């Protein structure tokens, strides 16, 4: 067969994804809110763990760690987050059943549909992570100032921030894998027959 498809540019993909998110604003906001809550919980706990983390001497960086109990709470709350995002993504696939079928009919490959959903998950994860970290930073600030009279060292914040983003992107991606796969396997014939 003739030449293969050219690669879709990231800009085109992102445009479709963002337009979609704008149209389905309310549910996307709920999903972002979910990531935000999970991340805010984890990162604020880490920031507050300063009091029992061995003190930094000089400029030597010590990561802020959670104790067993906090890790347990974290796992449970992140699991709840994943389930909620999963549910929301599945609803999104159902809502867009016909639309996805049409795109596949017009020649979109399975991998393109996958990419659309993965992109959406990344955007949601990024915004949720950013919000979660920022809010945790702001709300823990007075407590930390009260406790130690100064903010935590910059490295500590950077450490928590990178973990926050990692957690946010990870839960959002994990929750999206199955719905995205499901969407990519939609049969155009069934989708076109589908009346809304």
């Amino acid at each position: 067969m003739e030449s293969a498809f050219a690669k879709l540019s990231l800009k085109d993909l992102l445009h479709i994804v963002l337009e979609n998110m704008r149209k389905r604003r309310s549910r996307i906001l709920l999903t972002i809110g979910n990531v935000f809550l999970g991340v805010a919980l984890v990162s604020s706990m880490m920031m507050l763990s300063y009091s029992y983390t061995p003190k930094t001497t000089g400029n030597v960086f010590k990561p802020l760690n959670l104790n067993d109990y906090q890790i347990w709470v974290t796992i449970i709350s992140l699991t709840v987050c994943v389930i909620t995002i999963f549910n929301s993504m599945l609803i999104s696939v159902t809502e867009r059943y016909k639309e996805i079928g049409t795109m596949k009919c017009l020649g979109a490959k399975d991998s393109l549909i996958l990419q659309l959903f993965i992109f959406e998950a990344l955007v949601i994860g990024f915004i949720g992570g950013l919000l979660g970290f920022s809010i945790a930073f702001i709300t823990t600030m007075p407590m930390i100032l009260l406790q130690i009279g100064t903010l935590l060292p910059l490295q500590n914040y950077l450490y928590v921030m990178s973990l926050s983003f990692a957690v946010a992107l990870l839960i959002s991606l994990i929750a999206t894998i199955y719905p995205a796969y499901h969407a990519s396997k939609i049969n155009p014939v069934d989708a076109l027959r589908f009346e809304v």
Partner: protein
Amino acid sequence: MSSDYAVETIDLAKYYTLGGTMIKALDGINLQIFRGEYLSIMGPSGAGKTTLFNMIGGLDKPTRGKVFIDNIDISKLDAYELAWLRCRKIGYIFQTFNLIPVLTAIENVTLPMIFAGTPKKIRMEKARKLLEMVGLGDRLNHKPSELSGGQQQRVAIARALANNPSIILADEPTGNLDLNTGLEIITLLKKMNEEQGITIFCATHDYKIVEVSNRIIWIRDGKVEKTEIRGYVKRKREV
């Protein structure tokens, strides 16, 4: 293989089993569509028109028989090549328009070109020309929800033409439109057929379409009932 055909089907059949009984949606269809032809498929609801549309469009696999598009046996294609074929060789028009609701008219028309990897400048220019051609030059940035049914179907026609397909498949394109709007759409399809030599396959039970067709094939219970030739193909399309 004779290369005069845009589409050829040989003993095409599709059976469904539903609750133990077998439905013969298509039962041995032999059909040749000439390049530049305007072919209408008539038949009552349930006759098998949509099933035939899906088979020729490479959207579903037949139980028996073969479909050739531009002399390519589509049963021999893998999923990737089929996507390519659907993208480049076939334009689709549906009863329910099926535009992407979150994209504007011009973005909807560029979509098949995005899938085909056409550079942005070229595809925007082409989409604008196509929309002007279907009379929507002043509606480029409207979303489908801001357009009437007839206008949405015009966008769909422009979208179907985006990658210069060998054939346009339409499944009841006027089914959701009122009488006059339906007539406008038919006239537009006829114009595309005559002026650009585009091959059109149109499943319908709208008798207005009969008037503009070169050939009408009646099907019932998945079989060809009769064929009527109304006029010869005016001009062959250069390929």
